[in-house]
């Protein structure tokens, strides 16, 4: 067994025992795992898939709003998820851009070679589009994307994915020779708020976004046919045909059933009317496929408890492991200055990796969900503890250490009897720092499907729902304070 697999299994085992998560528990019947991207439409479609699978009598879970196409694609290929809603344009221009695919048939062949399949188009083309406030567009007499060339001073703000994608801003700028320099990347949903507040002039839209009419936006004509067709499809693992043929049969029923107008209405019901994705998905399935599905409603307290549990598990495992590893590393750093330099630089380097990037780096190794999140949080927790252990021991007066040596105590005994007790305050302070950082950073783990308090925060940002954001942010802050309080108590205990 190679190390990668071993580490993965170890983490999965730890995860499964603590959460008893249905996907990882051995010996259960088939479970279908659905993924969705971090925007409303994808979550609604993901919710439909989950309900359809459940309707087929299969245990199904929905890992909602994962952070970006790359995360979902890798998760699908690794088998962490079995299916997710995708768009043909994204596959051809971005995910599989290197294959230079021209037709849907070619796309299907390429997917098949990777053990993947897709359904026929669901019935709407959710293309990217470029839009701006209607009032501004009228004032500047803007109708087509190429008209933008005359206004280099306009402020552009695009969704983060659009900023970097092969079929996003770089290609758009090239095709239309756009001169704008002031271009910012941000969350897709926040861009709408930027437009509304006037801090942005132009943004990228998904043509089925409910906000287009709500915010009174004008979609600029793609007069050079830059954007490809983004037909919505369901992408799934070929092996699901054997594992859950009934679910696939139901997934396929969605094909051709959702046109652009319908999708826009479904999006609007969630984003503008505040209905839950589950309700909207269920009512659609009932109306169009005559499938009666009772959406499972969970009350706020149940959800809060689940997020708390998930968050505590993330923080608990990663912080304990960090303490167990970082204190010895700090001691080694004191004893061997050269090794210490290397250890401290590496731990420092890890700290500079943006958290989402680190989460995503770990996905090919550990899949999505808890394990990569725990490993990333563990890595982030190392530095403060190593550094404070090192500083705490180094800071002990040489006279005291020499007195211990002169007594004839061997260096291990000096460590145990003199150095560690005297460095305890500093070490505890390091652990406290790590714990607070850990609790905060763990909110980002929701982006890779690990749940926790980040889940309501992400949903809240997506739906512009302050209440929902607070539902994650307030408990996270309280937890950070609690953790700090606990360590302060321990500190006081030890020093008295």
């Amino acid at each position, binding site marked *: 067994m190679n190390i990668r697999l071993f580490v993965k299994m170890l983490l999965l085992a730890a995860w499964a025992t603590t959460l008893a998560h249905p996907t990882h528990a051995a010996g259960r019947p088939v479970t279908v795992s659905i993924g969705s991207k971090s925007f409303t439409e994808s979550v609604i479609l993901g919710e439909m898939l989950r309900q359809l699978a459940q309707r087929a009598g299969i245990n199904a879970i929905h890992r909602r709003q994962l952070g970006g196409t790359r995360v979902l694609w890798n998760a699908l290929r690794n088998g962490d998820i079995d299916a997710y809603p995708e768009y043909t344009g994204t596959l051809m221009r971005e995910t599989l851009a290197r294959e230079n695919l021209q037709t849907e048939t070619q796309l299907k062949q390429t997917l098949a070679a990777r053990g993947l399949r897709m359904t026929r188009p669901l019935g709407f083309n959710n293309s990217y589009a470029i839009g701006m406030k209607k009032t501004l567009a009228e004032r500047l007499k803007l109708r087509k994307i190429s008209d933008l060339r005359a206004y280099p001073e306009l402020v552009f703000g695009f969704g983060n994915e659009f900023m970097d994608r092969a079929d996003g801003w770089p290609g758009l700028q090239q095709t239309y020779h756009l001169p704008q320099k002031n271009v910012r990347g941000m969350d897709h949903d926040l861009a709408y708020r930027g437009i509304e507040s006037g801090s942005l002039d132009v943004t990228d839209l998904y043509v089925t976004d409910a906000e287009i009419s709500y915010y009174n936006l004008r979609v600029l004509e793609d007069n050079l046919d830059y954007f490809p067709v983004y037909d919505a499809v369901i992408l799934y693992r070929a092996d699901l045909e054997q594992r859950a043929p009934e679910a696939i049969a139901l997934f396929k029923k969605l094909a051709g059933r959702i046109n652009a107008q319908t999708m826009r209405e479904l999006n609007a019901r969630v984003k503008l009317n505040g209905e839950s994705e589950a309700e909207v998905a269920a009512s659609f399935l009932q109306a169009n496929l005559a499938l009666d599905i009772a959406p499972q409603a969970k009350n706020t307290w149940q959800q809060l408890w689940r997020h708390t549990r998930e968050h505590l598990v993330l923080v608990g495992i990663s912080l304990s492991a960090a303490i167990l590893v970082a204190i010895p590393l700090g001691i080694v750093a004191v004893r061997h200055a050269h090794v210490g330099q290397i250890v401290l630089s590496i731990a420092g380097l890890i700290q500079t990796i943006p958290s989402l990037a680190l989460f995503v780096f770990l996905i090919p190794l550990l899949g999505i969900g808890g394990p990569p999140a725990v490993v990333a949080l563990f890595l982030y927790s190392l530095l403060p503890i190593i550094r404070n252990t090192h500083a705490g021991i180094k800071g002990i007066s040489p006279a*005291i250490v020499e*007195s211990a040596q002169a*007594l*004839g*105590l*061997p260096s291990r*005994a000096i460590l145990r009897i003199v150095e560690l*007790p005297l460095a305890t305050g500093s070490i505890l302070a390091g652990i406290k720092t790590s714990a607070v950082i850990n609790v905060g950073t763990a909110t980002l783990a929701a982006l890779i499907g690990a749940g926790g308090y980040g889940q309501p925060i992400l949903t809240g940002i997506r739906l512009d729902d302050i209440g929902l954001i607070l539902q994650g942010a307030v408990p996270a802050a309280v937890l950070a304070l609690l953790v700090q309080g606990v360590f302060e108590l321990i500190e006081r205990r030890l020093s008295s």
Partner: protein
Amino acid sequence: MLTLSRVSKRYNDTTALAPTDLQVAAGETVVLIGPSGCGKSTLLRLIVGLIQPNTGSIFLGGEQLQPDNLHDLRQRMGYVIQEGGLFPHLTLRDNVTVMARYMRRDFDWIARRLAELAQLVRLPLELMTRYPWEISGGQRQRVSLMRALMLDPDLLLLDEPLGALDPMIRYALQQELKSIFEKLGKTVVMVTHDIAEAAFFGHRLVLMREGRVVQTGPFKALAQTPAHPFVTQFIEAQRRPMEQLAKVLQ
């Protein structure tokens, strides 16, 4: 008891101690003296094995000090430094008995020895439950001496043991220490920069300057037959303030 043969110590390009020979007989008190940076503390730290010599060898009771027997030989030495070097997180009792407990000495033996030593340095046994920062500087040095004497070492090594104390306490403790040394018959190597203290304690003085021994002998010999003008200079420098004081009183 203690023999140093051609022992030297260099730090990069600076010579802290030129090759030095020294012999200390059992029961003898030898005082290393000289101005700051003369190498007297370096010499003492070499004997304790806190630093390793670049050349030469050190023998304690015929056994050569080496990295593999260092821990054992240290149990035959007691070391006291200026501020006592007591462990701030341990009670005085734990400070004194730490090594004996590490060696798993018998509990009763430890208790008996603790009481004995407290009596020797004239500290009440009840004080032993306190922490180092709760007692005076003079008391700390007494406790430090207790710790050094706990395992009844052959050799006592003291680095400016009274250096941080105010003059009155210092004087009283000098008298006391000397009587303890005589009573126990220990071999003592002490470092000080105070010529009066050196003369008071030392059977022999080792006067050092810039990493070299200038003259070795009883104080009288140094004063009467100086081997080098520096010897007289060093003694005079500390005698003059006393003479000025005497003049004022006349």
